[in-house]
Every structure is written in C-alpha cells, then in structure tokens.
C-alpha cells in the first residue's frame, strides 16, 4: 500500500466518518443529559430527506440545511416530549422515532416527487460542494505534507469542517461552561440540579434540541454533501454505528472523534478492499461490515475498559410517584 493510497483511504474515512461524528456528538449531548437516544438513525434520516427535498426544490443547500435541521428537531421534540414531559420509556420512544422517520420520509418523498421515495438528483448550489483550502493547489506536489494538505485536509464540504470544529467546541461547552456543568449534572443526578434551583425539564429539552441540530447536520451532510439527494433508508444503520461510537468513546467528545473516524476508516477499507486476505484467514466483506457492531459488543462486555453511561441515563425524572 503506497502513501497515496493511505491518504486516499484516510480521505474517504473523513468523508464517511463525518456523518457518524456529527450524529455521535448529537447523541453525546442527549445522553450526557440523561436522555438515551437510540433514535439518532431516524433523526438523521429525517434530516437527510428534508434537506434533500428542500435543496432540490429551492436549489439551495443552505435552505436544505435549515429544513434538514428542522426535520431532525421535530423528531427530537417528539422524543423529548415522550421522555421528559410524559416520562415514557426512552428506548421505546427511540424505536418509534426510527420507524416514524423510515416510513414518513418515503411516504412524503413519494407524494412530493413521485420518484419511488427519493428526491430529485441535486446539482450545483443544491449541494455542499467541496471547499479547496487556500494554497492547496500550490502545495499539492510537495511530498507528504503537501499531499496530506491537498488530499486529506482540503477538498471537503463545509459540513466536514463544521463537524471537526464541533469536537473542541463540544468539549469546551461541556467542561468549561456553566451550561455544560449543568448538563452533565442533570445526566448524573437530576435531583441535584432541581434542588439547585435549575429546571431539569428546560435543561433536558435544550440538550435534546442540540441533539436535533447536530443529527440534522449529520443527515444533511449525507444527502447534500456525501450524496446528491435523498434515497430511502440512506442512513443505512449509521445512527446505530454513531451510538456504538458513543459508547466506544465513553461519552467523551475527543474519543468520539477517534471512534467515528475509526468506523469511517473501516467503511473506507471495506469499500476499497471487499475481501481482506490476512494470509491465515480471508475476511469476507460481510465481516468487515459487521466489525463496528462486534467491537461495540466487546466494549459493552467490558473487555476493553468499562463504558459507564451517565448515571441517570434512561430514567425519566420522577419527583412524585
């Protein structure tokens, strides 16, 4: 494997890892606040559809972005109402959100565009085009550094850079601001927040809304950055992989970057080398596709460090029985 191939694989990993990263950070906010979210998949899908649809109709990727975020936010609201206001089972709500998105997107897409549940092909300003970083052209032939800069760093859509910027930002918000302190507290012990005179409900809704925005970005990137339009079930389990990455990262933003990029790389490798011959065994493509899930199970089983979720995670905050 030569250097150019490695750069190309990494480049592909960045593209494929970005929706995972955004979704993973989305889940991080929600789960840090004590709301488990297995509905990331559905929110991404919803966002992918609305961004694709609106971008196709208006020809503007930015309007698409807003619609995508709006779509994901609406599902966040549903999940928030179920798990915060009505103190329902967050897992059941998450399952429902996923089904809702998977049916609703196709239903509406078919009714609007009559193209078998997909949106029209996006082109031009309907998509987030790659951005060439300054000087990329110039340094392109400089060995190693130039190649890395031109191929790996430059040439991604704006949402990729946004996703990467979200990592330090999330870290800073979580650990350096008042909001972050309260957010983490409400996921660990909502009573501590309540008795400190802070509204648990408002805090959790805020967290869930942030989750909506970020998963909206994730879905939007899928439909308007990575691909050019929405096709049904286009998330293809990425929401679950993001969840897996979140566990892998033990609910921390920087490791989340590592985990999602690792899973992105795995996908890039399996795209490029469907079968991997290790000499001893020949890993079939199906194995490569299952690796993120297998890894997650191994992590959950505590064989590679124990992943301890936020303590109040998954339980509705009930004051009066």
């Amino acid at each position, binding site marked *: 494997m030569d250097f150019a191939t490695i750069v190309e694989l990494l480049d592909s990993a960045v593209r494929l890892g970005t929706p995972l990263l955004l979704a993973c950070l989305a889940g991080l906010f929600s789960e840090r606040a004590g709301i488990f979210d297995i509905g990331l998949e559905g929110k991404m899908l919803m966002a992918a559809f609305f961004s694709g649809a609106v971008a196709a109709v208006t020809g503007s990727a930015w309007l698409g972005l807003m619609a995508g975020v709006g779509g994901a936010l609406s599902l966040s609201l549903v999940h928030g109402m179920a798990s915060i206001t009505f103190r329902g089972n967050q897992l059941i709500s998450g399952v429902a959100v996923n089904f809702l998105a998977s049916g609703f997107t196709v239903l509406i897409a078919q009714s609007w565009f009559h193209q078998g549940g997909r949106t029209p092909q996006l082109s031009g300003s309907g998509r987030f085009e790659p951005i060439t970083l300054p000087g990329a052209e110039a340094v392109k032939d400089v060995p190693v550094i130039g190649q890395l800069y031109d191929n790996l760093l430059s040439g991604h859509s704006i949402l990729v850079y946004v996703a990467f910027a979200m990592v330090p930002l999330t870290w800073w918000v979580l*650990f*350096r*601001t*008042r*909001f*972050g*302190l*309260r957010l*983490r*507290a409400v996921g*660990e*012990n909502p*009573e*501590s*927040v*309540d*008795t*400190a*005179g*802070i*509204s648990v409900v408002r805090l959790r809704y805020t967290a869930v809304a942030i989750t909506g925005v970020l998963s909206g970005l994730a879905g939007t990137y899928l439909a308007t950055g990575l691909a050019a339009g929405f096709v049904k079930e286009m998330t293809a389990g990425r929401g679950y992989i993001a969840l897996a990455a979140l566990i892998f990262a033990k609910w921390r933003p920087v490791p989340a970057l590592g985990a999602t990029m690792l899973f992105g790389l795995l996908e890039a490798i399996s795209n490029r080398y469907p079968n991997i011959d290790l000499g001893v065994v020949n890993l079939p493509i199906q194995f490569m596709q299952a690796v993120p899930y297998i890894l997650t199970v191994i992590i959950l089983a505590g064989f590679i460090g124990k992943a301890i979720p936020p*303590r109040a995670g998954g339980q509705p905050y009930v*004051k*009066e*029985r």
Partner: protein
Amino acid sequence: MQADQNTTKAGRQATAAPAAKSVATPTGAPAIELKGISKAFGTVQANKDISIRVMPGTIHGIIGENGAGKSTLMSILYGFYKADAGEIWIKGKHTQIPDSQAAISAGIGMVFQHFKLVQNFTVLENIILGAEDGALLRPSLNKARRELKRLAEEYELNVDPDEKIEELSVGHQQRVEILKALYRQADILILDEPTGVLTPDEADHLFRILNHLKDEGKTIILITHKLREIMETTDTVSVMRRGEMTATVSTSETSPEHLAELMVGRKVLLNVAKTKANPGRTVLEIENLKVRDEDGVERLRGINLQIRAGEILGIAGVSGNGQSELLEVLGGFANGTGTIRLNGEELDLTGKHSDGQSRRAKGIAHVPEDRHHLGLILDFAAWENMVFGYHSDPAYQKNRLVMDNAGITAHTQEAMNRFDVRPPIPTLPAKSFSGGNQQKIVLAREIERNPDLLLVGQPTRGVDIGAIEFIHKRIVELRDQGAAILLVSVELDEIRALSDRIAVMFDGQIMGERAPEDTDEKELGLMMAGVVK
C-alpha cells in the same frame, strides 16, 4: 435506603405526661411561617393543613414517625414539591416558592435526607452548581475555592475542594451539602435527619457547627428521630403524626416521654408477655464470619455467635455496623468467609448452595429489614407474596409442571385470617396494603414455615402500635415452639423487650453480650458507640 430511622425510641417507654400546648413565641416576625400547608401524593395525604412558626436565631426540631410527612413538609418549604394548599411566609413576608431557586433566593438552604450531590463531580463543582457567576466556569470555580477556604476556617468544615464526591465519606458529603447552603448565603438551614448516617463523633461535630450558626443568628430546622438530639440542641420542637402537626412546644418545657406520646398519639405500653426462655440444643453457630462489600471494604470482621433452640438473640447497634450484612449472609444472598453451622451442618457460604432457596430448604426463614425492596413484590397479589421464596416447595405444586394457584390462595386466606391481615383479600396486590399489614404478610409467610431458625430484621419499622404488639407476640410464640431466633433491630427497646440475650454490634464486630436484665440502656449505648467492650 439504610438510613438510621430510630422512629419511636423514646416513645415506647413513655408514660403519662401533660397534654400538649403550643408555646407562646417571642415577639418579632418569625423567620418562617407556614400556614395551612396540605399535600397529597395520589391517595396518600402526606401533609394536612399544617401551620408552624419558627423564630429567627433558633433551632427548631421536627419529630414524627416514619411517613409522618416531615420530609414532605420541608421539601415544600424548599420548593422541591408544590403544596396543594397553604401559604409560606419568610421573615414576615408572604413568599411564593414555586421552585428551589425561589427558596434559595429567600435565603433557605436544605440538606436532604438523601443527599443531592453529583457523585462524579468534584466538591467545588457541586458547590457552584446552580450558583455560578456568569456563563464560564473558571471565575466561579476560583471564587468558590476562596470562599470555601473561608467557610472551612470559620466553621471547621474541612473538605478537599478537588476531591470527587464518590471518594468522600458520608460525613464529608454532608459537609459539602452544608457548604452548598452556606455558599448560597442561606440564613435558614433545614437538615433532614442529618445524624442517621453519622458516627457519634461526626454527629457531635455537626451539632457544634449548628450551634455556631445559630449564634450567628441563622435559623435552623432539624428533623430527627432521636429524642436525645432534640432535647440537647433545639429551642422549640414540633411533632407530626400521620400528616398532621400535632403540637409545637418549647423544648425546655417538655420531656422525651411527653414527646413520644405526642408522636404516637396515645400512651405507649410495651410489655411483651413473655416467659423465661428455655433454650435447647444449639441451632446456629457462627465462627469468624467475614464479609467484604463490592468496594472491598470489610463489613463483617470476624463474627462469632451461637443461638440455641427456643431463645431469641437480639443484635443491637446503630444501623450500618454490619447487621444488614449478617442477615444477608445468613439469608444466602451475600457471600462471606468463615464457618456457619446450622444444626451442626456447615452451610455453603460462597458456592452454588449459598442462595435463598438452599437456606430455606435447610430451615432458615428470613423477615428482611426492607420489606418493600426485599420482602415483597409490591405488584404481586397477596397470595403470590405468601409463597414468595417458597414457590418451589412441592406443597405448592399441582403437578410437576404447574403451581397449585387455587391451593395457595386458599392457604393464603387462612394465613391472612390467622395473622389478622386487613383486608383479608388474597388477590389484592401487596402495594394496596398499609405498611403494618404488608409486614404481617411477610411474617405470616416466614413464621408459618415453622423454621428452625428465624432471621428477623426491623420487624416493626413503620408499623403502628397495635400491630407491633401482635408481631411481638407471634415472634415469642415461635420461640416457645422451639425455634432459634435472631432479631436485628435499631430499636433498643424492642431488643430489650424481646431478647433473651443481647449482642451489640459495632463496626462489623460483636462488642459483647449481655442478658437484658443485667444491663441498661446506658451500657448498651456505650457498647453501640464502640466505647465499651
């Protein structure tokens, strides 16, 4: 959940006392005045039309049995619960307290019965939570660090600001809660059963601090079950019973006996009709029993005990000194090392046969300390609870496959009649019975097995007097039928009334054994504190 709940310690020995009268309060606006507070949880009326006034610069005690509504009332004052009706006046002003923020602004701080700390936050983070200055943390943390240092010096409230809460002892966690209130400049401090989890030393320290605060003019409300603490520290005291405020008296004008009577609602007589024990062969022998908890802390540190047929061994001690672990190991749901012999046969302490089923099969019955969490399945019907733990017994099977539900129901009906469980309806879920009746169901189940050894933990916790008498009678009857009984209770009076021998536990060890007639409360108290062997 293992908080020390010394409900009616003094109550049990109370004698006639003059009728309650509210004391006249000094002039000036009260720091706190509650008027007509009511609060219902579903069908449970936790607070009924409660009025109370607390003068500034005083320590005001509140006492009452479990479930009397003390915590609920204070949570309303702190804005944690919303009252259904009533008014709150703070320093002479009618104040709305819709949430805790409003209470904090009104200068109220509260240390809850169950601490409200974030376990994996540092002390500092817990202190500033909700009281940050500005959107960024650093300035707040710096300020809090300085402030904490000052408070620590002023009030002997030393804690390491950078330690995580989960690393701190319970006593230190409580300090953090007090610091939280002081950091918010509370001048009204509510403490809900603060000493239940403290060692005597820590408790003394706490009361020194409280007195210091009082001298500074702060107002303190202290909820406790311990009449001694009330008598020693408070200026005035209110008594609650079944959601109602029965009286408020000046501490100097009352006595423990009087308070006990106010608490329970009638004169308390506690004579267990009991003949002298007639012990037979040795049933239970424990040698060098040791237990470690999940964190590796040694909870039992070499226990040696013997119980003979036809006698009651009472274990006295402040809760949290290993009594629960002792019951758990004997009951088969915790592991330990050492030797336990039942009727001369050694019990498996770690392996496959150290579970509740095997213990029951060997003739050990167990009335657990916590009936809600262990003894009953609240959603199960009475008849299901009546065989819970014995459900594999061949007597309850119709054939090899299915259980004899009709037979069990009939059996339950009889048992409910015999144990005077009200209402005697086997199909009612356990949660529909009152606390006393729930306890009778558990007792009926365990006693009716005619065990060789009965383990009983806190048999009368949260149970009314009538039921207490009944329960005690049944335990003594079982003894007279030749069973060995191990009784664990935090109620010294219960221990003294029932036991044929008393062993005192402190810090995972047996401090010594006494015959009830050869000792008194004072000696036992010193042993419980680990002072005397």
